[in-house]
């Protein structure tokens, strides 16, 4: 076998290696001038990218405000911070580009940023705040420190004069210190992200367990241990004290109930304090609690957890009281549910209770648990709590042997609109099930889903009817897609009943045999108002109480509305208006708008900039009446030096700018290629004498005045093209006008634009204006937004795909050549329209 002539193998590699070597050698260490040009371009690109990112964030914040997007307060604060930094970088870069011509922006941005920080609900970590507070020192205004539950209890004690258990709160400052000392915030934040990105259920469950395990295993800082045991010893006064440790999260029990989402530890001794503390805190990261908070747009930090340590009671009976009937809050009535001993099983939904109702439509069960005196005492407390805490309350209470009535907790009662009771049943068929207590009135229809374990909730379908043995708060995470609830046991006074009312899900509790009658998959209709369940989907009769909109009151939304006023509104709309200045900026959006506008003013004059040592500018060798020097800021022209030896266009004459010249084929910049292709359109006969017949006398005069290309070259000097692979800034002063095209043509429609600015001209004013009218008319037909002031024209085209922009750039190339001498041709008022029509019709030989 004869070896083949090695053209593509070793020889090819050798050639490539040689070219690489030549190429490297040609790359002298970049000069400061080149660094400067690249930097200007980099800063300019950063401004545009920052502007895009800011507008995107503003749109997202508006979405949240409109209630169309879900968010947490933490994620919101991160978004706002991002927007601020984008705007800062924009301001900084504009000032660096313009020689600090807009220094006033710094002061304005700083003021806005300080205002935003002052309004942010997460600002400041409350570093110097007490880690433990005695209940007698607590009022409602300490809610951020001790959580809502304990703050309300302190308020009720001090202002409503009711008896509450003695105790103290381990504050959110202690919680923060504990979380920080053990690096737990990061884990919690990760969990939030997971929920926010709608991670799958098992991943969320696993992550929750991990965070909880980490909390349970983390040491409580020494200082806090001392403070907690000190407070405990002070309360015990030497006795064998036991306390109940209850969650008291910030925001809990106020805007949204959080009913039963968190852990309570009963009968805690001194030695068990820290374990119980960790157990309560860990419950903040239970799956149900996380999802509940997420539904209510609350983040982890906002729900910073305080823990109440209250003397353990030994009641003869205890229970829950509604200070109003939940289904008729305007009637003067009190609903009391009681059980013997401790009420924890009652509120957890695991036990039925005896229920009394006072008022016009009283109900007295056959029970001796409560005496008439107890009932009137509870009623009196009910009204005092209402006036002290504002509005109907849901109260946990206890009566110790021979002791007063003790209020353990009081939270806002979520009442429903009263639904008119229909006279006729919703079906003539006999019900499958009748009886039970209405936890939330209304009618819901769907297929039965039996829930025995928490895992059963993972696959809960939309509009399913939840049927379960117990009424448990863990159902909260599927309540938003649940058609109705029916349980065997449970009380309307339980946590789940509160949640059902909050979500407006018709619910029937204490039905006794629901789980054995309502079998999985059965289509049923639940009339919770009249405590009946029918076979079949009687959808037409479906009605639920108007669901209150908890989101509207959520603290995250309130905070957002306040802060958003400093971020999203745009008041600086008209750059020509004298108020268009830094001091007028009322929002981050205004600042971004200002910077964006001023940036293009800078960029439009890049052609005027003294580029200093332009060894790196490459003169374009092309048959056009223009001298074009090309400055590459990244991938805009074929690698310098690679073609040096066989460069047909290079020569001493071509290299007047210092570096070898380049040909059109060396241009890699997509927008510049398009522009050149338009300029080089063979139909434009700028270099040939026009036939006299098509012109007339004035045209000939004009042509003579316009002169030949060689003369045109002398006017105004070189044109500059600053290019990257997808960017072009082209400025030309050749001819009698000064025009700048600035464009980016990438694959992201939102980043693409063409900006065009055109000014001046050598002809008299009237002719110049007519030329501007021609260009305006043509560009408007090409979808540009055009503004003119005298003989200045600014046109913008944004948000089109690359192919469209490239087609427009070709048109602009043609237009550029066609209009070069046009003011000499336009002699009557009608001419601009005539030429515009001719141009758009492709009759380029008319120019």
């Amino acid at each position, binding site marked *: 076998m004869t070896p083949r002539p090695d053209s593509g193998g070793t020889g090819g590699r050798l050639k490539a290696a040689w070219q690489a070597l030549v190429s490297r050698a040609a790359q002298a*260490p*970049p000069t*400061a001038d080149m*660094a*400067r040009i*690249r*930097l*200007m371009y*980099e*800063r300019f690109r950063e401004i545009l990218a920052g502007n895009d990112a800011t507008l995107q964030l503003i749109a997202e914040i508006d979405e949240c405000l409109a209630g169309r997007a879900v968010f947490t307060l933490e994620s919101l604060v991160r978004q706002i911070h991002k927007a*601020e*930094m984008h*705007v*800062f*970088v924009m301001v*900084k870069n504009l*000032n*660096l*580009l313009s*020689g*600090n011509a807009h220094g006033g922006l*710094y*002061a304005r*941005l*700083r003021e806005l*940023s*300080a205002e935003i920080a002052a309004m942010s609900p997460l600002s400041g970590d409350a570093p110097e705040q007490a880690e433990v507070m005695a209940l007698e020192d607590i009022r409602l205004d300490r809610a951020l420190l001790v959580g809502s539950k304990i703050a309300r209890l302190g308020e009720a004690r001090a202002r409503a004069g009711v008896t509450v258990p003695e105790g103290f709160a381990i504050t959110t400052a202690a919680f923060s210190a504990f979380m920080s000392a053990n690096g737990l915030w990061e884990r919690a934040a990760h969990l939030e992200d997971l929920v926010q990105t709608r991670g799958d259920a098992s991943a969320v469950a696993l992550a929750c367990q991990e965070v909880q395990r980490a909390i349970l295993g983390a040491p409580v800082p020494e200082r806090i241990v001392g403070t907690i045991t000190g407070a405990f010893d002070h309360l015990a006064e030497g006795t064998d004290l036991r306390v109940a440790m209850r969650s008291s999260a910030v925001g809990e029990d106020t805007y949204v109930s959080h009913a039963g989402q968190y852990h309570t530890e009963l009968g805690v001794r001194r030695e068990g304090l820290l374990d119980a503390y960790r157990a309560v805190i860990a419950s903040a990261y239970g799956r149900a609690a996380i999802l509940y908070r997420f539904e209510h747009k609350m983040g982890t930090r906002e729900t910073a957890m305080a823990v109440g340590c209250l003397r353990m009671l030994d009641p003869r009976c205890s229970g829950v009281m509604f200070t109003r009937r939940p289904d008729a809050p305007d009637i003067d009535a009190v609903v009391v549910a009681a059980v013997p001993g401790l009420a924890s099983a009652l509120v957890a939904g695991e036990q039925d209770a005896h229920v009394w109702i006072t008022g016009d439509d009283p109900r007295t069960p056959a029970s001796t648990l409560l005496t008439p005196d107890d009932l009137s005492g509870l009623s009196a407390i009910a009204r005092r709590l209402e006036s002290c805490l504002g509005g109907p309350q849901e109260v946990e209470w206890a009566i110790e042997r021979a002791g007063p009535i003790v209020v353990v907790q009081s939270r806002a009662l979520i009442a429903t609109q009263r639904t008119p009771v229909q006279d006729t049943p919703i079906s003539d068929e006999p019900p499958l099930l009748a009886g039970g207590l209405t936890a939330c009135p209304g009618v819901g229809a769907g297929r039965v889903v039996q829930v025995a374990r928490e895992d059963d909730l993972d696959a809960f379908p939309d509009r399913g009817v939840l049927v379960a043995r117990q009424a448990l708060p863990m159902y909260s995470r599927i309540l938003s897609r649940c058609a109705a609830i029916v349980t065997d046991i449970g009380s309307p006074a339980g946590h789940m009943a509160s949640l059902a009312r909050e979500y407006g899900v018709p619910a029937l509790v204490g039905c006794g045999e629901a789980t054995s009658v309502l079998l999985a998959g059965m289509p049923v209709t639940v009339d919770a108002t009249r405590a009946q369940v029918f076979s079949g989907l009687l959808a037409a009769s479906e009605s639920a109480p108007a669901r209150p909109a908890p989101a509207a009151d959520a603290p995250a939304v309130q905070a957002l509305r306040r802060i958003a006023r400093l971020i999203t509104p745009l008041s600086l709309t008209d750059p020509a208006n004298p108020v268009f200045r830094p001091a007028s900026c009322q929002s981050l959006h205004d600042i971004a708008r200002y910077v964006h506008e001023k940036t293009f003013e800078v960029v439009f004059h890049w052609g005027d900039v003294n580029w200093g040592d332009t060894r790196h500018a490459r003169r374009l060798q092309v048959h056009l009446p223009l001298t074009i020097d090309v400055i590459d800021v990244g991938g805009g022209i074929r690698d310098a030096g690679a073609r040096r030896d066989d460069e047909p266009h290079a020569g001493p004459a071509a290299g007047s700018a210092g570096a070898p010249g380049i040909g059109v084929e060396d241009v890699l910049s997509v927008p510049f290629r398009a522009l050149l292709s338009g300029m080089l359109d063979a139909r434009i006969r700028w270099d040939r004498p026009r036939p006299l017949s098509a012109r007339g006398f004035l045209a000939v005069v004009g042509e003579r005045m316009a002169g030949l290309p060689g003369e045109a070259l002398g006017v105004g000097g070189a044109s500059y093209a600053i290019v990257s692979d997808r960017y072009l800034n082209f400025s030309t002063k050749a001819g009698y006008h000064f025009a700048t095209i600035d464009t980016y043509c990438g694959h992201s429609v939102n980043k693409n634009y063409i900006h065009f600015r055109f000014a001046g001209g050598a002809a008299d004013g009237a002719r110049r204006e007519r030329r501007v009218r021609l260009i305006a008319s043509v560009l408007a037909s090409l979808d540009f937004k055009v503004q003119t002031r005298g003989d200045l024209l600014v046109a913008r085209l944004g948000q089109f795909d690359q192919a469209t922009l490239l087609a427009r750039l070709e048109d602009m190339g043609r237009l550029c050549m066609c209009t070069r001498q046009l003011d000499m041709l336009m002699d009557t008022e009608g001419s601009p329209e005539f030429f515009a029509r001719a141009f758009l019709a492709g009759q380029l030989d008319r120019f």
Partner: protein
Amino acid sequence: MADLRLLLVDDEPDFLEPLCTRLTRRRVACATAASGEEALQALADSRFDCAVVDVKMPGMDGLELLRRIRRDHPGTPVVLLTGHASVEMGVQGMELGAFDYLLKPVDLDELLDVVRRAAEQPREPGLP
């Protein structure tokens, strides 16, 4: 031969050393300082074309160091570099006369362009 002499100031060696190595490969001579005090000592001992300073450092922070360099070594431009961005720090830095304020992670080419430009015109902070 190195064409630039840089002083890199950062309390995190994990950031400082790789950056220094990469810059040296690009023919930039680097000295490093782990604190503001070390940086001032280095500036007193020899001349640098530019100082690249981390904003958040224990003890003397980057803004304080910037203030002192502007006062005692006005010919040495300062480029601030930070991973913990805040508007207040940024605005302060620029008002105190930083040549630029860059966010970590920083692109090496961009950093080189900035320091080259800074080294060329030390007396005109803020001008590109």
